[in-house]
């Protein structure tokens, strides 16, 4: 699929250099096209889009309260549909606004079957407020509220979403824009609730140089720390670069040790993370091969 030239996020944002969230939003909006409204709770994108009365976005953007994105999206979608409009409603939210404070509204909207797409760009912390721990922060990562490294595991958002049986669910990564683009196009072709979880390697938050965003995303996928897949009406398929990673992966240490947030991680912790990856890849493989 050819990615259109039209830009809906202009070149004048106030994003950090190397920002994955802007990159993801660029391809999400290219896939969605001009008949689209973005619903954005408090997150980095609240700031990135610019300061009133200017905006860096070329489509309507509705900024809403932190916990409310999915609920606003469902109300908006119902109103458009009631008026016979096909306008895409896309909630674009960070991980904090999704896995933590927004999970109730998300769960409700998914269960109700409202026709909208929810995209969670996951930079694995409250980056907008300066990198505090979120439910999506991975084990052993340092944040300003986990100075010794997070002791708990990353919340399994995808399993939570899957339990709602959305018509379409997928993961993606900022480093693989074509995979991301294709999934957004596919998601928006279906009525009902759709969900995408996109890894957003954040240079200042994860503590790596700004020019390495893409590389960090690639390492995440190649190590199996992040897997690209989609569930179309419940049926799982591994996509893109993750197909190779299902068979052969780089050691996760190659991904972890490139990031300042994992500074001080122990060999035991790395081994623990490696074992967890191998386990979860095995589970995904079983699900792909299964009939149900």
């Amino acid at each position, binding site marked *: 699929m050819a990615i259109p030239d039209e830009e809906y996020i202009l070149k004048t944002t106030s994003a950090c250099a190397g920002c994955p969230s802007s990159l993801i939003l660029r391809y999400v909006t290219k896939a969605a096209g001009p008949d689209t409204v973005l619903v954005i709770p408090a997150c980095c994108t609240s700031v990135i889009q610019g300061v009133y009365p200017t905006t860096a976005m070329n489509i*309507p953007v*509705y900024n809403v309260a932190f916990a409310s994105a999915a*609920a606003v999206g469902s*109300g*908006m979608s119902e*109103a458009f549909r009631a008026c016979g409009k096909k306008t895409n409603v896309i909630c674009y939210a960070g991980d904090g606004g999704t896995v933590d404070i927004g999970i109730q509204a998300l769960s409700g909207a998914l269960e109700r079957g409202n026709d909208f797409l929810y995209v969670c760009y996951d930079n694995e912390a409250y980056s907008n407020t300066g990198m505090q721990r979120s439910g999506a922060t991975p084990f052993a990562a340092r944040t300003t509220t986990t100075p010794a490294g997070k002791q708990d595991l990353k919340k399994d958002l995808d399993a939570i979403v899957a339990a709602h049986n959305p018509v379409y669910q997928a993961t993606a990564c900022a480093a693989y824009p074509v995979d991301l683009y294709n999934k957004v196009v596919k998601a928006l072709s279906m009525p009902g609730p759709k969900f995408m979880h996109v890894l957003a390697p954040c240079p200042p938050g994860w503590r790596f140089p700004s020019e390495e965003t893409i590389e960090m995303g690639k390492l995440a996928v190649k190590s199996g720390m992040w897997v690209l897949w989609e569930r179309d009406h419940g049926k799982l398929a591994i996509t893109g670069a993750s197909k190779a990673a299902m068979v052969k992966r780089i050691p996760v240490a190659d991904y972890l040790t490139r990031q300042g947030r994992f500074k001080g991680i122990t060999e035991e912790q790395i081994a623990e993370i490696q074992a967890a990856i191998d386990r979860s890849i095995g589970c995904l493989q079983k699900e792909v091969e299964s009939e149900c």
Partner: protein
Amino acid sequence: MLMIGTGNKAVALAVRDAKPVVVAAYPITPQTEIVEEIANYVTDGSMDARYIPVESEHSSMAACIGAAATGVRTFTATSSHGLVYMCEMLHMSAGARLPIVMANANRALGPGWNIGAEQSDSLSMRDTGWLQCYVSTAQEAYDTAFMAFRIAEHESVLLPVMINLDGFLLTHITQPFETVDPEGFLPPTNTPHAIDINHPGGYGTLTKGTEHFRFRWDIERGMRDSVAVIQEVEEAFAGRYGRRYDMVEEYRCEDAEVVIIAMGTLGKEMEVAVDILREEGVRAGSIRIRWFRPFPAIDLAGREVVVIDRDYSFGFGGVLANELRAKCGCRPFSVIAGLGGQEVTYDDIASFVRIRTEGGEHWFGVDA
């Protein structure tokens, strides 16, 4: 159509007749009958609306915001804990200038659990930018809920409206009321800032202090202008349907030396107390405040004032008494009564007048 039904049913029928496009709601006692009725109307086809059964009150207001942002008419209903749970969204909806209409069944807040009538819930939402009206009969609930859409959606207002009914006392009482032929009374919605795909813009983007300040002033201006709009709409309603309302409802006030002031059902029952006091030779009258926001201009000069609050602002006093002190410069005898659905009769109200002291405060049932 003349019929008999509960206060809740009157609200539900008004909403049916106002033809909103989206209703998003969450059940809570004693409001639940409103959303059950509306769900039935949507199911049986007597109402052509999208009913969104949200998972919380925070989300009911959020869904109304999302829908109203596209320019369609929206409604929700709540009570008590539900109302304060959506507090954040009350600020967001007024700040976004969305003309959402909501019914609130006034109910006490816990702990402990209490489902009785109390107006602390909505009065603690006083500063959210919502217009607030307190009604006293099923008829008034119907009429006000119906008119509320025209007031909220008026281009000089564009602010949300909350219609308050005393929990159980009004929500659950069965009374006669008359529905109207709604045709043509409510103009089609015309939200000038509705989302328009052809004119993309940012809504609620990062806003600096100077602009933020101006937006707050705009809300205040809408609130001030709403007084004239309320009067205009109520006049139009009276002209077409014959029932007349005002910012306040006065009873035997012309020559009154002492005036009782209250909101909601107490504001109706106190009329019976006025009759009793008149028979005793006391020149009493009553003023039932309907619109609390915007707050009405009331001339109380030269009169003794007894205010009954079914609420309290801890550390300061009865909310209505405080508003009247500040706005009208009076020194009322402030009575706190009816909290948590406490029984207050017209005899009790008459007794409040008999024991009045200028500037005093009396906690009914607590003070000796």
